[in-house]
Each structure stands twice: as structure tokens, then as C-alpha cells.
């Protein structure tokens, strides 16, 4: 039987790679490989997944040095020869093995004012937003984010400045800046304008390169930079 040599990170912040031999299958995903190891070789392996179909964003890991959603990543696409290395996501504290602590990642969404702040109440009529309006088009471009943290793990600026809000939180803020029903534009622009906000982006485009949903957070961050500059020019910040 054709076997795949899998090297998996075991431990937390300190630890090491352990080698496993996993049978190669047709159309095998990296998540299938991790699941095989846990169910058939070593039940103490910790990893996280939920939907298995690229919707929930839970199963992201570092595969051969690159952050990926493992449920939709075929082994055939990423294996070097017959070998594969699987590690937890970078830029996040490791809880155990392949499981990272996502608290800081999601706290930054809140810090970037990622909550929708409605201008109207339930007593008001439905808001009518034209599907072709520039704001709606801009929001649409970023709204399919599944919160997998692949962009966050790929971002060098997050590594250099742990306070940096990161691509996902800034992308979320940009979708809300373009939501005409939202009433917290000023506060949100102020929240993303600081030292750890949109202006800290170095335009490496790693987030846009790695996003499994083909979102370009770099474009959202560039939009925030322009919106912040315009607001500052008008004296609104």
C-alpha cells in the first residue's frame, strides 16, 4: 500500500514533530489524514474541525509551511513527494497539538468595531439596498469570510506587532463601513485608524494570496486607509 509520511506537531508552544505513516487514498484531504491519525494510530492527537465542507473555518492548519483550510486541501495538491508536514496556525497561541487559541483573533474583530450597529429599529420599514450600488458591491467582496484565521496566520505584520488588528478584523470593519444601514461609521474608522490598525499594513498581500475564500483583505484595508484619510481631512476623526 502506498503510504504517506506525515510529520505532525505535538505539544504546545514547546514540542516537536512526530512521524506517522498514513495510507494514501484517492481524493484524500489533509483533514482526512489528521482524522486517520487520531482514529487509527494515536487517539491523543488534538485537532479541531466541524463542517468538513469549507463553511465553518474551524480546521485551518499550517500544511507544509503554508496556512490552509485542511478540509478542502487535497493531499495530492500539497504533498512534497510522499511527505507532508502539519502544524498549528502561526501567530496564535497553541493550546495542544494542532489546536490554537482563537480568542485574540476574535477579540480583535470586536476591537475593530466588527459589530453591526443598526440606525433603525424593528419598527422601521425594511432598508432597501440596491444590489449594484458601489457600497453593496464593496461589502459583497469581503462578506464571505468564514473566520478561519488563515489570513491572520499568514500575516507578517501580526508577527511583528501583536496588537495589529489583522486582515480578517479589518476586512470585517470594511464590510460594515460599506453597510448603509450601519450607524457607527465614525467610531469604527477611529477604531481602525490607530497604530495597530489599517495603516500598519505593509501590503505583502499574504492574506489575499492565502485566503481560501478568495477574498482580498488587502483591498479592504486599502479602502479603510482611504476612508480614514478622507474622514480626517473632513475633520470627522
Amino acid at each position: 500500500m502506498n503510504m504517506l509520511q506525515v510529520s505532525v506537531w505535538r505539544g504546545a508552544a514547546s514540542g516537536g514533530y512526530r512521524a506517522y505513516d498514513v495510507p494514501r487514498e484517492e481524493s484524500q484531504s489533509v483533514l482526512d489524514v489528521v482524522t486517520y491519525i487520531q482514529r487509527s494510530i494515536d487517539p491523543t492527537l488534538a485537532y479541531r474541525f466541524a463542517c468538513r465542507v469549507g463553511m465553518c473555518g474551524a480546521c485551518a492548519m499550517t500544511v507544509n509551511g503554508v496556512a490552509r483550510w485542511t478540509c478542502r486541501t487535497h493531499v495530492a495538491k500539497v504533498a512534497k513527494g510522499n511527505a507532508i508536514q502539519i502544524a498549528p496556525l502561526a501567530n496564535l497561541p497553541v493550546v495542544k497539538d494542532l489546536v490554537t487559541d482563537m480568542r485574540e483573533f476574535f477579540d480583535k474583530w470586536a476591537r475593530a468595531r466588527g459589530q453591526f450597529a443598526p440606525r433603525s429599529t424593528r419598527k422601521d420599514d425594511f432598508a432597501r439596498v440596491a444590489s449594484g450600488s458601489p457600497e453593496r458591491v464593496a461589502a459583497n467582496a469581503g462578506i464571505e469570510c468564514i473566520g478561519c484565521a488563515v489570513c491572520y496566520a499568514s500575516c507578517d505584520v501580526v508577527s511583528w506587532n501583536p496588537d495589529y488588528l489583522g486582515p480578517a478584523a479589518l476586512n470585517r470593519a470594511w464590510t460594515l463601513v460599506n453597510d448603509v444601514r450601519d450607524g457607527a461609521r465614525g467610531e469604527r474608522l477611529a477604531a481602525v485608524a490607530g497604530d495597530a490598525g489599517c495603516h500598519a499594513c505593509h501590503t505583502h498581500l499574504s492574506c489575499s494570496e492565502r485566503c481560501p475564500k478568495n477574498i482580498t483583505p488587502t483591498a479592504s484595508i486599502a479602502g479603510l486607509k482611504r476612508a480614514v484619510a478622507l474622514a480626517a481631512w473632513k475633520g470627522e476623526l
Partner: protein
Amino acid sequence: MKNDYRARNHPAWWAFLVHRLSGLALSIFLPFHFWALGQALQGEARLNTLLRWTEQPLVKFAETMLVLLLAAHLTGGLRLLALEFLPWRGWQKSLLGWAAGAALAAGLAFLLNLV
């Protein structure tokens, strides 16, 4: 955990590196540039001696590299301005190709003019 080179191995990150390193190299060269121009203040003979020195093949090669760095930094900067200020159309990779091509063309044009 930290990322290694594998996470950074994509065209846009290489473009960032070229832009940053060319900028650093140019800023190191700038004082020499001003020093060379300053030789004119010491009289025509002094400047001519320096200009004759720059006719050597090795200096000409270094000059070509300098033109290449300058062109790379210019086109890389234009690319960044386009990314920041123009509507996003998913053509950032084509833009990278154009920036690299234009920089190389400028360097080659300078070299052709020399030979």
C-alpha cells in the same frame, strides 16, 4: 508558532522585498551621489577626474545595477500606489509582472546605450 520562508514564498512578498531592499540600497547610494556632484565645487578638473574614473567597466556595471534598482523602486512604488488608490480588480499579479518588466527594460535600455 512563527512562519518561515514557505509562508512568504509568493510573488507579492518578493515584490515587497525587492521594493524594500532597492529603497535601502538607493538611500545608501544617495550620499555618494551628492558627494560626486559636490566635486564640481572643487573645480572642473576634479569633476573630470571622477567622471573618467566612472568610465571603467566595473563602475559602468555598478551603474547599470543602480539604474535597475531605481527602476525597480519606481515601478514598485507605482504598483503600490495603484493598489492603494485604484479600484481593486484582481489584477495585482499582472501589475507585478508589468512593474518587473518595466524595471528590467529600463536596466537593459541603459546597458544597450553603453555598449
